[in-house]
């Protein structure tokens, strides 16, 4: 069965897998320079103009797989030589224009930017065009195309531009590390730094729990991932890899839901703090709204803190769909509790670097959280959980939620909020469309993923948030 959505993900995975393989064997230092050649062995190029360029790019990927440039703080990095410098012409008329007589494009253009030559073929005056796209919509031959770079198109907060060499450039001040560009770049020229080496080191040095215990905190979106095996196989696989035990980050979500509901009732207006990209977006783009951000830690942070308080010598590795979590783990407030963050993509590479046959493993169990903690993985889940938490705690407060699915919807809601015209008192913000299941670090993204999360939620042993959290008192 298909493990990834795209070949770019597969390529990235191969690099991670090879680096991990060497790291487990303690032979990374001697062999790191050979990794590109292991992946592209022959003399014939398979992706680019020549094998040397392919290997040069792979060399850059190896660097990022090993943690990337420590000088550059952004988790998201452009591999400049891999950037294909896609055209950026905006709306253009192609040779599919047949020079028809209707001239719908001309009629619909409010700026008068469309003119015709002697053959009735349309031309767009770039000085007048405002990129509204109306002409492209009405053309009966779909002859007008929008040439926009996929990375710029993916980055709805407009943090990507071009540098002097026409390669993509990320504005590190604006970037919220959501990873949309990482997933969308068709050349794999933008990628997230990996901390697999930190994770491998933590696991190796724990010597199977002898020196300290390594806890895996797994995000609930895992239910929509690793579709080729059972979740129970993955749990056992993690333990075989050296994790002492696996806990659902959704239990952290249950903890957060209870306190977030209380905070909302107390303050009257609140924006959610689960999605680190959304939180960073408010802080950078709408600093005036910072006061409304929930003071709760994210589910990852809350649960990791709990684990470290009960077992102070332990190490915590979060495994999820998210690149922004990598940045969150570096915040001063979260750093003491989370030792490394891995994506599902990276976990797959780690399994395969050990040649683990997941389906052959015994099925472990994973059950710590309630239905409501688990559905945090998809858009709308957090709001459902907050409403439930109000009910369970007998708080008399009417939630008027605004569920923002994706950063574009977040932007609109925050804009309204800053003008006091939102008409809601609770903003659930998720930077990725669909919620965490749309995260850049997911192996696959599909229509069915939301249903998978809901199904997994219903399978939870505990039905209420209070019951799930009761064991922690």
């Amino acid at each position: 069965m298909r493990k990834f959505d795209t070949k770019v993900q597969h390529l990235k995975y191969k690099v991670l897998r090879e680096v991990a393989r060497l790291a487990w064997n303690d032979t990374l230092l001697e062999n790191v320079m050979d990794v590109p050649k292991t992946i592209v062995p022959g003399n014939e190029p398979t992706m680019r103009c020549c094998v040397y360029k392919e290997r040069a790019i792979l060399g850059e990927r190896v660097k990022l797989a090993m943690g990337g440039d420590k000088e550059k703080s952004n988790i998201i990095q452009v591999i400049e030589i891999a950037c294909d410098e896609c055209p950026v012409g905006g709306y253009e008329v192609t040779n599919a224009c047949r020079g028809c007589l209707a001239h719908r494009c001309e009629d619909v253009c409010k700026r008068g930017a469309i003119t015709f030559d002697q053959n009735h073929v349309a031309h767009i005056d770039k000085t007048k065009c405002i990129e509204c796209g109306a002409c492209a919509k009405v053309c009966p031959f779909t002859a007008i195309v929008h040439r926009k770079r996929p990375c710029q198109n993916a980055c709805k907060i407009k943090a990507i531009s071009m540098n002097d060499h026409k390669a993509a450039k990320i504005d590190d001040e604006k970037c919220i590390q959501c990873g949309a560009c990482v997933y969308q770049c068709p050349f794999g020229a933008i990628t997230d730094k990996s901390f697999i080496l930190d994770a491998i080191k933590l696991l190796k040095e724990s010597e199977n729990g002898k020196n300290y215990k390594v806890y895996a905190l797994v995000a609930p979106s895992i239910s929509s991932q690793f579709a080729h095996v059972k979740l129970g196989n993955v749990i056992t696989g993690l333990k075989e890899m050296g994790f002492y035990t696996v806990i659902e980050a959704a239990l952290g979500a249950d903890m957060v839901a209870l306190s977030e509901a209380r905070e909302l009732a107390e303050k009257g207006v609140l924006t959610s703090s689960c999605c680190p990209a959304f939180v960073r977006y408010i802080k950078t783009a709408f600093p005036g709204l910072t006061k409304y951000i929930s003071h709760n830690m994210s589910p990852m942070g809350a649960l990791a803190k709990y684990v470290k308080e009960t077992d102070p010598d332990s190490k915590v590795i979060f495994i999820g769909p998210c690149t922004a979590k990598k940045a969150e783990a570096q915040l001063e407030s979260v750093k003491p509790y989370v030792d490394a963050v891995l994506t599902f993509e990276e976990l797959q590479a780690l399994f395969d670097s050990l040649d683990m046959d997941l389906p052959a493993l015994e099925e472990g169990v994973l059950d710590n959280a309630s239905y409501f903690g688990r559905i945090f993985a998809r858009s709308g889940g957090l709001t459902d959980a907050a409403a439930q938490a109000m009910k369970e705690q007998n708080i008399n407060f009417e939630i008027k939620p605004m569920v923002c699915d994706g950063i574009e919807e977040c932007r609109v809601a925050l804009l309204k909020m800053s003008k006091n015209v939102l008409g809601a008192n609770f903003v659930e913000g998720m930077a990725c469309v669909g919620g965490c299941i749309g995260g850049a670090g997911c192996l696959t993204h599909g229509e069915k993923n939301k249903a998978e999360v809901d199904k997994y939620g219903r399978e939870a042993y505990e039905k209420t948030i209070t019951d799930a959290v009761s064991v922690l008192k």
Partner: protein
Amino acid sequence: MVFIQVCVGSSCHLKGSAEVVELFQKAIAEHHLEDDVVLSGSFCIGKCNLTGVSVQIDEQVHVGVNRDNFRDLFKTYVLDVIENERK
């Protein structure tokens, strides 16, 4: 002072950790041992897939704890130990 850790990891959770935690809370309240006992959770005591819930009392791990054998366990490893300490 007696330290009690009830395993609330997945495997024990499904076998009824919540009930065992509740039994401990009730028993501690009943005997007024709030100052003599520290009750906490643990995400794994390393005895998964045996029968029932695992509980660690001081250094010793007890497996298969449930409603039926709780009274005996509490008496032997908590009440009696505290009584001895007081002597």
